[in-house]
């Protein structure tokens, strides 16, 4: 019965405009009322599209499914498998190596820095331990030449004036040449100095790369720590997220049912209208009046005010209606029986 009535309304509902739809609602409400009276009027409207076969049973199955999914343990359950991967050996070893490098630096860099510090301080100048020996050997060779070649030649040239002034002057001149050569050889100490000065200057190119190494070391160490902390932070965040996910599970499950309920709402409309009832005393009074009226009509207890006039007005009326012309006075039509 209900569905048949709903079908009629639905099709009408679908074919009519919204303004007409309201009127249909009213019409069906009146029809459903069953003719008024003191009974409450109940109007049931099904808004499910019944042109789809089995829609009603589907809707029931739908909310039942939602109920099942919302109930314990619910559709959404806690994920128990790992969600945060362990750090593997390579990653840990890499971080440890990074930390070690950042802590201790590199030996080759440390030695390089030591060298550069000495270089810039000029500690490498005049420290060629081999140059003195080299100088000594060259002087030795020079003196050998002096002894073996220069002096014999002078002596030979002055064999007839041996020991004379010319001989001495010649030796003195030879010594002069030797000393000039000694000076030239001794300049190797200065040349070594200049060489070191050159290297000192070239060493400037290495100052910045080496000087920045400690920054890189510090950064490496910090980065190693940051990797460790980021992993730990990620782990904490994962636990936190998991906790929140578990917390929200009952709510998500409940929302399944909530959404289903929201979908089901308004698929039906039942309207009950309670009509106003008169009060009991009013009804009793009405019945009493009706009953007494009927009683007086048939029992003859109704009193004729003209049968025994007592009051002045009644007597005048009796007189008037008993007189000629029924008390009508042509000269004074407004007055009767005066």
């Amino acid at each position, binding site marked *: 019965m209900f569905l048949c009535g709903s079908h009629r309304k639905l099709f009408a509902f679908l074919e009519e405009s919204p303004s007409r739809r309201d009127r249909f609602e009213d019409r069906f409400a009146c029809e459903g009322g069953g003719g008024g009276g003191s009974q409450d009027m109940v109007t049931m409207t099904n808004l499910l599209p019944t042109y789809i076969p089995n829609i009603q049973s589907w809707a029931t199955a739908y909310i039942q499914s939602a*109920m099942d999914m919302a109930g314990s343990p619910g559709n959404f359950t806690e994920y128990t498998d790992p969600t945060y991967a362990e750090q593997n050996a390579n990653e840990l070893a890499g971080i440890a190596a990074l930390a070690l490098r950042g802590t201790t630096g590199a030996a080759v860099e440390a030695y390089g820095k030591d060298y550069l510090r000495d270089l810039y301080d000029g500690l490498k100048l005049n420290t060629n331990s081999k140059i003195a020996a080299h100088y000594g050997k060259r002087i030795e060779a020079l003196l050998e030449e002096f002894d073996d070649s220069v002096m014999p030649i002078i002596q030979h040239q002055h064999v007839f004036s041996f020991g004379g002034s010319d001989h*001495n002057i010649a030796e003195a001149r030879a*010594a002069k040449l030797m*000393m000039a050569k000694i000076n030239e050889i001794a300049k190797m100490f200065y040349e*070594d100095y200049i060489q070191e000065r050159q290297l000192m200057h070239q060493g400037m190119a290495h100052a910045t790369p080496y000087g920045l190494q400690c*920054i890189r070391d510090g950064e490496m160490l910090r980065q190693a720590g940051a990797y460790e902390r980021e992993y730990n932070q990620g782990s904490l965040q994962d636990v936190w997220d998991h906790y929140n996910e578990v917390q*929200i599970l009952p709510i998500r499950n409940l929302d399944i049912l909530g959404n289903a309920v929201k979908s089901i709402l308004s698929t039906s*409309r039942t*309207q009950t209208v309670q009509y*106003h009832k008169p009060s009991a005393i009013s009804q009793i009074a009405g019945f009493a009046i009706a009953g007494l009226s009927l009683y007086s009509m048939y029992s003859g207890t109704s009193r004729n005010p003209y049968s025994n006039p007592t009051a002045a007005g009644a007597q005048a009326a009796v007189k008037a209606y008993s007189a000629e012309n029924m008390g009508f006075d042509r000269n004074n039509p407004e007055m009767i029986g005066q």
Partner: protein
Amino acid sequence: MSTNTVVAVPTWAQDYVKQYGQMAYDLWNQPALVAYGGSIVAAQPQNEADGIQALAIRGAGGDEVISKATAFILDVIQGNRLAGTKQEFIDALALVTGNSTTDFASVSSRIGKKARYVGDPDGTFLAQALAAAYPALFNARVSAAIYADNYAKERVFLDHALAYGVEMGKHPVIDAETLRKAGLANREYLQNSYVLDHKLFIEQQEMSVANLEIFGNMLRALTGSQQTTTSTDPKSNKVMGAVGGAMTGAMIGSMFSPIGTVIGFVVGGIAGWLFG
């Protein structure tokens, strides 16, 4: 009173809706949502702290290689090495002249020692006397040459040193930036902890609301599922009731007797006043 009720939930679904409401109420009062109480900020590892401290020390104190190189290149650019007054240059020059002087003596000792012929008026070592002034002369010559050469070469060094001037001049900036980064690293850690603490704080407050909203969502879902309109009936007027009652009573009473009219009038009026 008149009541008009509209129910939007189909009867076949009402049991589900009731269960939904009960479940929402139970979850709200459980309460279902409790804020996370575990650790949320990872501690700063020692390596990170040490690294930051190393950066801070480096930034604040600089590096010795850089400072020495900077001092050296500054000295060169200022031309302090042109005059040859630096001790290392003087030492190098002393090696030249000192070794020369030593070996000048070796040469001197080799001349004029031969025996003189009879009649030679000069009995001294004439050759050595003649060569006696040579060491100082040659050392002076070689010194002058070395000073000049040193000046020329130091000029070249000075010129080349300009290429490093700008680079070394940047190092205070690098130091400052390193120090700033060290501070930044600590601040970022602190900031991150603040952000997480704040997030948890908000989450804790939101949890209470979320608990409440479990029921609120249920209410919103069901709002409009039933509409009950209650309206009061129009109240009758006491005087009108009395008048109506009096008239009715009088009419009834008049059926019996004149006095019945009066009695009916009074009784009906009172009854109309009281029950109208």
